[in-house]
């Protein structure tokens, strides 16, 4: 038997006091599609960086073709045929496709001068190799995401790698583009190139990979051929949680006054004729592939899509939501998808992060009432069980879960009527996740808060929502009580849409 292409043995890596990787072993054979699964923060990216030589492991060894590698660097990893396609693709938006493709090979050949004929030739070859059609003279910034990804893949293939690592390649793709990507990946595999597919999406893993390794909190928790896995087992491995037997039950009066009624909501090219109702105390899940319009729906309700067509009623009164301020004024709160770039003020204190939505309420004549503000922040820190002695610490010192509690807590201070959560527990550790779910259900039940929960994580929706909507290409294609559906049905539906 030949040695595997790459073998990691008992890899350990720590940053300060944090153990990012702990006793991780993994092997990838030639021409194998291997999936590395794990939630955000599980250690996936650290592992990629160890394989690609950016970081040196503290313990353990890396073998390539059965040979032990000492002091792997990015350069030597590339020389051994390891290519990484990062989530952001690392392309140059201001340069042409041809140049993006040819630059690195020209660079690695140590050339000093650029021959534009050779650049085009190299690029044309690279594109032909991948078997796709791209305008070589187009500026990369003008390409859609899928096009940029093809450029990145074509560039990576130019150096004839043995292993291609793709970091969350499907994140920004639509269903159709994901299918196209999978065809490309299988084609790459057909040439004997192994692909390490890093993802946290179940459906993809089951569809594309041959072997699966799941890591959680820096440890391998499950590994084996894909045939040994089903969705439930992957979820269990990724989250460390059993799927709760019983979901959220809404006990309100179905004939009561709806909290939110949306009729014929349309935004050209984004949403089409959406109609939905949310009753007080309901938790409504929204599922759909990327590009399905789920984030656009949330943004429209939060006043970030001014000029939408359609009618929105809150508590029976018709309202226009043409600015964030109006939406907030009508009791709508939004917890955005990307906590770090859209949610938090990282260098500021917990208190300031918490109180940002309350400035108007807490000030008189523009002057902040310091005492009241401090009291309210402290109360909310207690209520949301945020792990910090005081609120004047920088918010960066909190874990992902606690940071998310700050973002949710800031809205609760305003006593909202409708809470929109976009990916409420992305990048949150397991223990904290359950706590956040408990809190959301409790808020819906006790305060009569309506919740719209957008998530990729079907078990999360099944677990916490009483009703689940499915969006596809801007249209609402399904609206089912959670009790009448299950994960398998939903995922089948989503798969059929792709």
């Amino acid at each position, binding site marked *: 038997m030949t040695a595997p292409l790459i073998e990691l043995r008992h890899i350990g890596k720590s940053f300060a006091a944090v153990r990012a990787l702990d006793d991780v072993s993994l092997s990838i054979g030639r021409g194998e599609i291997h999936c590395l699964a794990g939630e955000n923060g599980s250690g996936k990216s650290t592992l990629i960086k160890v394989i690609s030589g950016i970081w040196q492991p503290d313990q353990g060894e890396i073998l390539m073709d059965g040979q032990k590698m000492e002091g792997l660097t990015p350069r030597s990893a590339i020389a051994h045929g390891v290519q990484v396609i990062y989530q952001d693709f690392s392309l140059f938006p201001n340069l042409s496709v041809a140049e993006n493709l040819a630059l690195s090979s020209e660079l690695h050949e140590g050339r000093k001068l650029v021959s534009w004929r050779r650049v085009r030739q190299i690029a044309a070859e690279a594109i032909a190799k991948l078997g796709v059609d791209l305008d070589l003279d187009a500026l990369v910034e003008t390409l859609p995401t899928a096009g940029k990804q093809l450029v990145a893949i074509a560039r990576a293939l130019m150096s004839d790698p043995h292993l291609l690592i793709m970091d969350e390649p499907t994140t920004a793709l639509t269903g159709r583009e994901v299918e196209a990507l999978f065809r490309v990946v299988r084609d790459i595999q057909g040439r004997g190139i192994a692909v390490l597919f890093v993802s946290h999406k179940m459906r993809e893993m089951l569809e594309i990979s041959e072997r699966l390794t799941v890591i959680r909190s820096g440890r391998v928790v499950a590994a084996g051929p894909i045939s040994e896995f089903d969705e439930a087992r992957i979820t269990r491995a990724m989250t460390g949680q059993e799927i709760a037997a019983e979901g959220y039950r809404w006990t309100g009066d179905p004939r009561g006054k709806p909290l939110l009624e949306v009729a014929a909501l349309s935004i050209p090219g984004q949403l089409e004729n959406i109609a939905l109702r949310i009753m007080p105390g309901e938790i409504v899940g929204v599922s759909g592939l990327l590009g399905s319009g789920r984030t656009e729906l949330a943004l429209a309700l939060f006043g970030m899509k001014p000029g939408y067509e359609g009618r929105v009623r809150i508590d029976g009164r018709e309202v226009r939501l043409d600015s*964030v*301020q109006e*939406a*907030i004024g009508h009791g709508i709160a*939004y917890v*955005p998808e990307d906590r770090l*770039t*859209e*949610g*938090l*003020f*990282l*260098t*500021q204190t917990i208190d*300031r992060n918490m109180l*940002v*939505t309350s*400035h*108007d309420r*807490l*000030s008189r004549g*523009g*002057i*902040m009432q*310091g005492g009241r503000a401090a009291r309210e922040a402290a109360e909310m820190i207690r209520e949301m069980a945020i792990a910090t*002695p*005081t609120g*004047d610490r920088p918010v960066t010192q909190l874990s992902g879960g606690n940071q998310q509690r700050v973002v949710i807590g*800031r809205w609760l201070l305003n006593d909202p009527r409708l809470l929109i959560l976009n990916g409420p527990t992305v990048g949150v550790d397991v223990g904290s996740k359950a706590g956040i779910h408990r809190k959301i259900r409790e808020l819906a039940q006790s305060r009569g808060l309506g919740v719209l929960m957008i998530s990729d994580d079907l078990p999360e929706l099944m677990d916490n929502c009483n009703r689940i909507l499915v969006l596809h290409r801007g249209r609402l294609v399904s609206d089912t009580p959670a009790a009448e559906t299950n994960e398998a049905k939903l995922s089948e539906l989503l798969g059929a849409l792709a």
Partner: protein
Amino acid sequence: MTAIAQRLRRVDTNLLQLVVLTVLIFAGMAALNPERFLRPYVFESITFIAPELGLLAIAMMVAMLTGGIDLSVIAIANLSCILAGLFFHQVGAPRGPDLVNLPWPMVAAGIGIALGTGLAAGAVNGLLITRLRVTPILATIGTGQVFTGICLVLTGGPAVVGFPRLWGQIGNGTAFGIAMPLVVFLIVAGLVWFLLSRTAFGINLALIGTNAKAAAFAGLRTGRTVFLSYVLTGGLASIAGILLSGRTNAAKSDYGVSYLLQAVLIAVLAGTNPAGGRGSVPGIILALVALMLLSSGLQIMRFSNFLVDLIWGGFLLLSIALAAWRNRVR
């Protein structure tokens, strides 16, 4: 108790360093010029000259708070007092007792013109930056040229000389034995300090400077707030212009050009983050005192103004190096 101590320690490392720097400069200058430095006159003259620079530095800090910069502050200051000066020459006389003895309502109107000019100029910057989304550097380079150009067109080049006596009082007079400019500076600095640390507007500014996207998602009116910060910057610049013209009894299109670097230097030395999100008035005051002591000391030692410029520029580079080193250690 420990919480308070911790808080003090954290908040004030930068201020503490500034205090140490100020004391060191003071001691150094006193040691180098024991005879001439420790005289009331030296400190008195600082209280007349420092305020105009201090106001410009505060203006610069306010612009930097949202990650911007205002390179037009000097032009705004000059334009404001040139317009006020031309107004006085119109309603009084180009010179003589009619001008000198203009009654206070006229002088108040002149102050209104100067302030209004500053606010309007700031509004132009704010509109360019928030509405047309021009980068602050280029927008204020451009408007700075235009404002200076308007000064030139209005005056034809030479200085507007001669201001009413009451106007001169603002730059040269004293109140309760304290230099009038210092009084103006302390009041304005106090107001800005209050605005930045105790009002929703000020806190919003720091939050927008930290993460503009998150601020929009939290429902802050980012465009309006940034716009108002440039209006404030323009207003502060025009007050600096009033002090400058009051002190020198003249206004000219190219006065105070070297103040631009000094204002940036003081803002950066005071711990303002030019990328946005951090800046404070007490820091500005300490940095201002430190650098004024330094330049007075150097002038006593007969350093030319050019050498003082060299040292200011060197200080700016040094403070960048120090900040980089601090971040690395952290």
